[in-house]
């Protein structure tokens, strides 16, 4: 029973991180209809920046803030410089472009920081809570992870639903022509969408970093599971991304705890296939006609 509770709590905290990555992918998909395969390497890069700051004497908070800020800037630059020219090209071209970007950023990180993985500090204690004499695997740092992800998801929801910028961003994403006629700077909104998404990704990177050693390729599995979570929830739906992330986090935690970690990729595949066979556009997609 303790094991079940441990696995559940662990699943919630890893699920929160998957949810953040999935949110990053969903935000970009909504604004530009591109699956950003470079997201994993972008959040790797920003985590390395945070690590460099902390290693040179900065506090955790400074590293955290700089990671998010550099994620924001990186996302904006990537959208403006590299992605803009292929936004109207066939989607496969955008896929290849983001793959190229992924490769380039991984190589750059290797050049700057080397390929040997290094550790990253946690924000809070990694010693589990003690309840009634048994020590749980859930730690204060896990609480921090869950709360931060909830806060960011809530902030994004408020931004999109209740602010003028959010309305303009939704307009630019869903009806660019009409939005442009109404005076929305569509290009700028798309850039902002990428910047926010990359910032959410950077957050996921900093949060997951203490539990993986950070190296140029160590965040690749995170991107894959984040993408699966986003597809699971429905790529157009931010709530879907959060639910998809949590569902995957819990399911993979149980599989890895009871059956062994080698089955995790297979379990992710099975879950995704079962869900997509029942709902081909994810759990939270609105049913709509498909343009042919």
């Amino acid at each position, binding site marked *: 029973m303790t094991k079940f509770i441990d696995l559940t709590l662990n699943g919630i905290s890893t699920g929160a991180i998957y949810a953040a990555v999935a949110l990053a992918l969903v935000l970009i998909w909504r604004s530009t209809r591109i699956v950003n395969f470079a997201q994993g390497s972008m959040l790797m890069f920003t985590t390395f920046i945070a690590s460099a700051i902390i290693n040179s004497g900065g506090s955790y908070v400074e590293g955290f803030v700089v990671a998010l800020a550099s994620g924001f800037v990186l996302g904006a630059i990537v959208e403006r410089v590299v992605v803009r020219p292929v936004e109207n090209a*066939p989607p*496969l071209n955008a896929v290849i472009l983001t793959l190229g970007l992924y490769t*380039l950023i991984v190589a750059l990180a290797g050049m700057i920081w080397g390929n040997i993985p290094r550790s990253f500090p946690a924000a809070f204690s990694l010693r589990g809570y003690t309840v009634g004499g048994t020590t749980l695997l859930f730690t204060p740092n896990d609480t921090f992870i869950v709360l931060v992800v909830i806060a960011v998801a809530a902030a994004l929801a408020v931004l999109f639903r209740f602010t003028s910028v959010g309305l303009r961003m939704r307009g630019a994403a869903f009806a660019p022509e009409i939005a442009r006629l109404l005076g929305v700077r569509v290009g700028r909104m798309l850039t902002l969408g990428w910047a926010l998404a990359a910032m959410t990704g950077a957050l996921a990177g900093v949060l997951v970093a203490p539990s993986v050693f950070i190296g140029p390729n160590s965040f690749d599995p995170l991107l894959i599971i984040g993408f699966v979570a986003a597809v699971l929830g429905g790529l157009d739906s931010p709530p879907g991304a959060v639910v998809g992330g949590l569902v995957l986090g819990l399911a993979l935690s149980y599989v890895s705890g009871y059956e062994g970690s080698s089955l995790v990729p*297979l379990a992710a595949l099975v879950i995704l296939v079962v869900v*997509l066979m029942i709902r081909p556009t994810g759990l939270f997609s609105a049913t709509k006609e498909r343009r042919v």
Partner: protein
Amino acid sequence: MTRARRPAIFESTLLRSLGLVVIVGLVLLLLTNQFSAYRNLQLASGAYYFCVLAGLTVLAGSSGQISLGHGAFMAVGAYTFALLNFNEAWSVFPALTAAVVAALLIGIPVGAAASRLRGPYLAGATLAFAVGLPALADKFPSLFGGENGLAINPPIPPTWLGSNFPLERWEAWIACAGALIVLFVLYNVTHSGIGRSWRAVRDDEIAAALAGLRVGRRQTLAFAISAACAGLGGGLLAAVTQLADPGSFPLQLSLTLLTGVVIGGLGSLVGAVWGAALLVLLPNWTNDLANSFSLSTNVSHNLPIAIYGIVLIVAMLVWPSGIQGGVRAIAHAVRPGTPSRTGQATEPAKDESAKDGPAKDGPAKDGPAKDGPAKDEGVKASQP
């Protein structure tokens, strides 16, 4: 697809493809006799990449589906080959046939599932497939050899070729024979009614369904054929490298395959040749280039990867329709009268923009409706 006034041999797809295969085969035969052992190995790897890329380009270009999971089908082919060739002592060609059949059999249910999915959902599912399937090798270590994989004996050249016949040349022959078979089959399939029905499904699913095509079945067929090609490629890879292990089929392989297809030129078999050549030669070139400077270890180890990334980005910005699209554009600029040869490679650009909802209706760069050469062909095709 009717073409006006050509010699009789060009009228028959079968004869035309046979001629093509014979000519290419003779050229390859001459080349392998001249090549060094190293060049022959490169040719062999180019040939097995071609098998996979050709299957994938038909899937993505003709049928309009994308797959990020073809590395997994290569793994199926490679493991089938290894189990039969080494453990069961089958000879090379029956084992390769079995590799194709195994990949085909797995490709059918995967294709049936894939035919329900579109765009990024299909990408996500096939991505999970590419990551999930190789995990089976870890789960059943007694059968699949776990992390170490299965080692295979090198294929032995038959005795009638002489006792000194180099192994590498024999491997190149096997791989090239596989590539030629794939070329022959896919050329005929894409030029047959099946290929036309794929393009119909790709361009307008509803219209195709109204015209009586079973859309799901057509897509499943395309997926299965393309999986079978990948299985052959994987079997050949195992035969040439004498190893089938999980490390040979990482997710990067699947992504690299897709890259090769798009950079080569989507939907064109010639594009698959360009893509295969690129996959074999580019890593060598970038390594040589990086080693020609004296740099610190960190930089020199990562420079080839960086160059590869830059090549991908620049290629997509400069040549959105791939190398073959660029070649065709140049040919068209030189001789404006020449129609684009089959139209296949220029069409996918359109289907993908059309498939993808309202946000993407911008300028489809090579869409036939907006493109000079394709329009020419449309006019020609309508003449009796």
